[in-house]
Each structure stands twice: as structure tokens, then as C-alpha cells.
């Protein structure tokens, strides 16, 4: 408040500048820090635990039992056809992950929840999804995985442990950065 009249020296200006710049820098740093965290993230207690096993009736017939996938890296994706826009955004990414890694020991599993059969099949057909996809009719799988909303995606390593959980749409880049070390890690090790 004390704006002294007719100050000749430029020192107050310099100090004001330094103080202003320092304050601004601190604030910006705090904000940048803030951007690196997700206040809405719900930490899953399942991280590091064995992934719950399940048997999934598939849309194109047959069933998938997860014990058969032991030794492979598994991406378990919970989705629904009414989940707009997130499930629509991530579907092509999941398909690309499947195409890219299926021969290197990775399986993508789609688990459709709270949906209508016709709409779910339509969704799969229009995106041309080829990875195993089935319905969690009783909702027991999503309860075992503590699914809170759709989409949610769990990453399971070769030993069957959950290593990562994503809430919201995943992208190919997000998954690749986690998948590569998992595939590399166990390449030499015994499953």
C-alpha cells in the first residue's frame, strides 16, 4: 500500500520484480505438480494381488477360463455399449494392442457388463474387435475386480498378478509403456 512518492532508485522495482517472479514461479510449480496427480483416482486394493480367476462365456461361442492364460500378460477390459464416449474412444486402441502383441504373449479380454446382448454384439461388429469378448451376466466378475464404472482396465502380468488399473479410456500409448517391460521381464524367466 505504501507507494512512496517519487522514488528515484530503481532498487524497489528490481525487488518488486524478483518478489513477483518468485511468487509466480512457486504458484506455477505447485500447479504443475497438481497436474501430475489425479484427485479422482480410486486406488485399487487389488494392485499386487493375484487377479481373480473367472470363466467367461464368449459372444462367438465357447468359454474362456483365465487359468489357461497363465504365463501370458492379460489386459482385462470392462466395457458397455452405452458407455459414451470413453468406451468408443478406447475400443480401437485395445484392438491395436491385441494385433500388436498377441503373438508376443499377450491377451486382451473384453468383459461386457450391464448391457443388452444385441447392442453389445453390434458394438463388437462395428469396431471389428477380434479379441476374446464375453458377458459377465451375473456381475460376479466385476464385483471380484471391484469395478466402479465403465470403462475400467486391469493389467495382469505373466504370474497372474494385477499390476495396474486404469479408470476411464485407455490409449495404445498408455498401455504400451506398461506392457513392454512386463513382456520383456518374463521373457527369460520361467512363468
Amino acid at each position, binding site marked *: 500500500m505504501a507507494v512512496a*512518492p517519487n522514488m528515484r532508485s530503481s532498487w524497489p522495482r528490481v525487488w518488486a520484480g524478483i518478489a513477483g517472479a518468485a511468487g509466480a514461479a512457486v504458484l506455477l510449480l505447485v500447479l504443475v505438480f497438481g497436474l501430475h496427480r489425479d484427485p479422482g483416482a480410486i486406488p485399487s486394493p487389488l494392485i499386487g494381488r493375484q487377479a481373480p480367476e473367472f470363466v467367461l462365456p464368449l459372444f462367438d461361442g465357447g468359454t474362456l477360463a483365465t487359468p489357461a492364460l497363465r504365463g501370458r500378460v492379460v489386459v482385462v477390459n470392462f466395457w458397455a*455399449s452405452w458407455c459414451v464416449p470413453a468406451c468408443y474412444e478406447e475400443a480401437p486402441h485395445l484392438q491395436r494392442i491385441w494385433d500388436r502383441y498377441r503373438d508376443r504373449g499377450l491377451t486382451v479380454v473384453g468383459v461386457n457388463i450391464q448391457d443388452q446382448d444385441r447392442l453389445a454384439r453390434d458394438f463388437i461388429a462395428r469396431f471389428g474387435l477380434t479379441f476374446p469378448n464375453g458377458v459377465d451376466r451375473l456381475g460376479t466378475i466385476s464385483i471380484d475386480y471391484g469395478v466402479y464404472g465403465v470403462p475400467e482396465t486391469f493389467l495382469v502380468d505373466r504370474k497372474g498378478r494385477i499390476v495396474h488399473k486404469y479408470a476411464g479410456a485407455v490409449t495404445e500409448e498408455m498401455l504400451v509403456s506398461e506392457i513392454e517391460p512386463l513382456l520383456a521381464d518374463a521373457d527369460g524367466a520361467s512363468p
Partner: protein
Amino acid sequence: MMAMLGFLSLMLAVGCAAGGLVTLLAGHRLRHDPARAAWGRAAAAGLFAGVTLAVVMMEAALIGFDFSIRYVAANVNRATPLLFRVAGLWGALEGSILLWAWILAALTLLVAVKYRGRHPDLIPSVLTVLFGIALFFVGVMVGPANPFARLPVVPPDGRGLNPLLQNHLLMAIHPPLLYVGYVGLSIPYAFAMGTLLSGQHRDEWMTLTRRWTLVAWTSLTAGLLLGARWSYDVLGWGGYWAWDPVENAAFMPWLVATAFIHSSMVQERRRLLRIWNVSLVILAFLLTIFGTFLTRSGILASVHSFTQSLIGPVFVAFLGLVMVASLLALLARLPQIRDEGWLDSPLSREAMMLLNNVVLLTMAFTIFVGTIFPLIVEAATGAKVTVGPPFFNRLFVPLGIVLLMVMGLGTALRWGRSGAEEMRKLGWLIGITLLTVTALGFAGIRGAGLVALGAVCFVTVAQVGEYVRGALARRAATSESFPVALRSLFALNRQRYYGYLTHLGLAIVITGIVGSQSGRIEVQRQLLVGQAMQVGGYTLRLDGLVALPGADKLVVAAPVAVFSGNSTALAGSPGSPGALDILRPSENFYRQARTPVPTPAVRSTWRQDLYVVLMAFDPAAQSAVLRAVVTPLVSWIWVGGTIMVIAGVLAGWPSHPT
């Protein structure tokens, strides 16, 4: 098609903003260059045309259910009513940036046209700043927040607007008003920065921006008021303000803008506080950007479908850029805009306005610290903490009381140096206030509430006193009757007398806040149909459960008969005579939401509100859980706030030559 056209119009807008910026920057040294000024106007027109076209495309897509556009699919479904399809424009991030850019483009064009040929050494610099801001917002939309981004496969239906937004009509007008206020503050900022850039002026921008600032302030006030009302009507907890980061983000610029409106009068009148005013305007503008960042980046509050968008970092970068540029410009011109004198006397109106500025800024700083404190703590220690209402309430009660005292003093004292007459006025004021406080004390009011009401009385009497004195003086001079004289005061000096009206409105709002904070009675009970419960002088009887299927939702309402007094003799059929009112609290089931959204029912009188929420119901057992809240004086907040907004509109209304 629409997505393509919309995106192309945004590209056009980017081109115009960049073109305008470059042309004016290049022409900065060539003053009084009509050709460049014309290019600047053309660029402003192009910017407005481009963003307008994009808005039209987006609205067409929203109204026409074009689910190939991600934004439309995320915010509209086939059951969304037309009004909320239109309002979908400001329902989420990308659309609200589009709205922001649209308002800014309109204001830029308005400045370019309104000051055509006038102030040729100032307006180009002002437009330069506005183009710079506009370039950021339209640039964000062709980059990380593209409202016209498409989905790889068109979904058969969209998700729909957040039901909390779709559940109230106010959502259709509250955000645009708030945005006009936010964006409107970029005009005084652009004039202040233009003044610094041009290096030739010191005081002209005060007069030029007075009305712009007033319009922005009034819109912000209306936006905050409607936001509080929405919160009261929709959220179902019987409160109107929760110190939520989103609310704080809008309240901070309002406080700083309020401070600026007062201190700008000191500069207009006394040629003082120049550096202070420029700093305030910079601060207000920074706070609008910061507020948008807070509410739109997901940094503090997040929904489940959190996406890793680039919008946060981009906003931080822009915030940093504005800070650095403003600080440099201010420091560079500091010697030119330094004041030559200082206050003549601490007992003057300008001294009180300065004091009011200090209090308002302290309030803004308090909110700022409270809002980002959790982030600071987490950055420093990793611990997660929250700052809740007790922190803000504890600081705002004393600050608010000081602010009211200063308001009263500032109204009673005169410009320059107060004399014996003002001291007599003050004596009267203090006398009346003390009498009122004593009376209120005998009426059983105690503690902080009593002090606050005393301060409210002080302010009110000071404003009323000015009206009476002014009208009496006018009557003596013109022999008009007292009511006519009172009316002509408003015509003679709108700023001053509507300003007093704003103060009165605030006094009413604060009375409402004090009342509603002091005595809240809350009861929650499970009732069978036909059973009754008592709450604060009312008896409520559950009369049934009614399901009403609507186009976009299923509504389950519980008619509740309200009787006065704690009467237990309520035997009789539903709708029995003697009921004061039938309230219909309801729960709304939207298909886009898993949990129902309640709509409380309110019986509002000038003394108190009865607020009833349907918490849960069981159709098989014919029972419902009702929460009833009785809160004193809530309606005073809406009345006082409306008076503030009306006074703001009238004070800024273009005056007719008489």
C-alpha cells in the same frame, strides 16, 4: 460435415486472431496509421465470424443429435430436451471454451467498432492484447480441446448431460452469465495493458473501462447468485454455499473486481492509486484464467471419466505467460504511472475505499490459500488434506464485519478531508447502530451474529442517510417533492446512487447469511404414508408416493402436507383443509445416471424457508425417508442479490441525454 465446417471456422478464427495480433504488433511503432487500424477491425470481424460459425455448427450438432462428434455424444442423448441440448454448449470443457472464445470475440469486435477513429494511440494496443488472449482460446480449440473431435464409430445414442445440470432451468443461464463476467474482465485488463504498452497514458483507461467493468461485475454477481440458488435448489442439503473450489474460483475474481470498481473511482477523482489499479486489474484477469484452469483441468475436482488431456499444462503455460508479460509491462512503466501525491487525510472516502480494497484482497487471498493449500501440502509432504468451510467461515466473519464498517464509513465520509459535518453524521450513525444493537441484544441475539447485524445496521443507515440528505438538499434547491427529488438523484449521479443501492442489497444478503447460519433446524425421519413428523414449528404429513414418467426422466414425488404448529391431531384424508401448503419433493431417475437426483421442495417466506428432500422411498411398504430443514432468512439472500444485480444493470445502463 458439421464437424468439418466447425473446425474450419475455428481455423479461420485462429488465422484472424494471429493476423490481427501480428499486424498490430508490427504497426506498434507507426502510430495513427488508419490502414493498420482498418486491418485490425477486419481481423476482429473475421475472428467473430469464425467463432460464431463454429458456435452455430456446434449448436446444430447438439440440437440435431450428431453423435459422430465426441462432444455431442458425451453431453446429449436422444431424450435430452431442446433447451438442454442448446445449453449443452456449456455443459463440458470444450464447449465452454468455445463459449468463452465467442464472448471474447464479440467483445473484441465491439471494442474495435466502438472506438473506431478514437484514441488512435491507445486502441491498437488494447486490441493487440485482446487478440493475444483470443489467439490462446481459439488455439486451444484447434489443439488439445477440439470441440469437433470425432468418434471412430458413431454410437447409437449419446450419454447425456450431467443430470445435476439437466435438473434445473438455471443451468441454462448461470454459466453464460458467469462467463460474460469472466471474459468481460479481459476488457479492463486489455485497456490497462494497452495503457502500459502505449506508454503515453495514465488515467484515460479508467473512464473508458468504467462501464465495461460494471457490466462484467454485474454479470459475475448474477452468475454467483444463480449458482448459489442452483446449489440450494438442486443439491439437496439445504445450503447455498460450500466453499467448493468451483465456487471459490468464481468468487475470487468477483472480490478483486469489486475492489477495483472502488479504487478506480479514487483514481478517476483524485489521480491516486494508479499502480494499485493496474495491479488489481491484472490480478482480476489472472484469477479468471486461474479459475477456468481450476474448474476445467481436473486438478482439484474430478469426475470418473477423467481423461489425460493436455488442457491443464496448456493453461498453466498461458497463466505463466500472462503473469510474466503483465509483470514486465508493469515494472517497465512503473516510473510513468507513479502517483504524485498521497491521501490528504485518513478520514476521507478514498482512505476508506483503500481500506475496503485491503479487506477485499485479504478475503480473496484467504480463499486462494484455502483452495490451493491441499495442493501445496501434498507437493511438500505427500499428505492429502482438505480445507473445509470452518476455515473460511472463521476468517470471513471478522473480515466481513470489518468490510461492512468500512463501507458505512466510506459512505458517510467525504472525498478529500472530512469536516465537522461528517463527524456529526458519524455520531448519528454510531448512535442509531448502538441503539439497534442494544435492542437486538434484548431480543436474544448474541455473539458474532449480533456484531454482524450491528455492522449491517451501520451500513444500511449510512446509505439511507445519503439518500435522505441528497433528496432533502435537492428539494430545497428545486422545490421538487421528496419522492421526485429522490428519483432525480439517480438520474444525476447514477454511479453514486445505484452504488448505494448495491450496498443496501449487500446488507440484505448479509442479513440473510447471518440469519441462515445462526438457526438451522434439521430433522430426518422415515414415514409411512399418513404419518407425520415435526420440524421447527411445522408438522409434515406424508400423503403418498406418485410416479410421473417424463420424456427424459422418471420422477417419483412424495406429496407432503404442511401444517403450522406442532399439531398432532392430523387425522383425515390427504389434502385435508387447514394445510398451509402441499410440497412435492421428488427423486429424478435419469437414464444417464445410476443414482437418482433429488429435487427438494421449498416453502419460502420472508422469515424462514421450509426445505423438504425426499431421501429414499419404498413403494411396497408405502414409506419414504424425508429430510426437512428449517432455515431462517434464506430468501433475503435472493432478494438482496437481485437488488445488487438490478442496481448494477441500472448503474451501467447507457444514460439518455436529457
